[in-house]
């Protein structure tokens, strides 16, 4: 019973990794779409947020390549935290201006969306670490 439960949790973690990877790919592609087709040039802080997303993506790919490991989820947590700091920095930078920086997408600016996605990545990795199947 315990073995089956552990196998189930491991499958859940792998499925979650794949879903998260698809999400990261979607986020990065939409950023490139905004940049290339909507002519919205990125600022250095936007690029740092993209770097944090790519970091998360590579850590997730490591989960698939070298099997699910706590250290990989720790890298996801760290990168999401760094990205979160950058997006908070950008939100606070434009908090007093009415227009903000760039065009809003679905009512929120891209850096606010980034903050939300980094929060989701942080909480998601915490949950994945919570149900991490222990191997003795």
């Amino acid at each position: 019973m315990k073995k089956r439960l552990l196998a189930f949790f491991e499958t859940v973690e792998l499925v979650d990794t794949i879903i998260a990877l698809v999400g990261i790919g979607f986020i990065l592609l939409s950023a490139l779409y905004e940049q290339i087709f909507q002519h919205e040039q990125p600022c250095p802080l936007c690029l740092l947020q993209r770097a944090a997303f790519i970091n998360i993506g590579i850590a997730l790919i490591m989960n698939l390549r070298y099997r699910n490991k706590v250290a990989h989820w720790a890298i996801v947590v760290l990168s999401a935290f760094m990205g979160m700091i950058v997006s908070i920095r950008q939100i606070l930078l434009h908090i007093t201006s009415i227009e903000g920086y760039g065009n809003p997408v679905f009512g929120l600016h891209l850096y606010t969306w980034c903050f939300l996605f980094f929060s989701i990545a942080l909480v998601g990795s915490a949950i994945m670490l919570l149900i991490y199947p222990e191997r003795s």
Partner: protein
Amino acid sequence: MTDWMVWPIFITQLVALILVVVNPPLKRWGISPRIIVMGILLAICVAIAASLYHDSTDALNLYF
């Protein structure tokens, strides 16, 4: 860090991605590609933290 130094972060990430995908046999030097990639990712986290004073009021003017 100046603005253009954001790009070496992307190049380093590309190297890390190639290391993950190719997984070269570096174990003979006593270090596995997985550890190297984790070191690279941690270094990039530090680089991101070190670049926080960037201002976003100016675009980088990257035209493709």
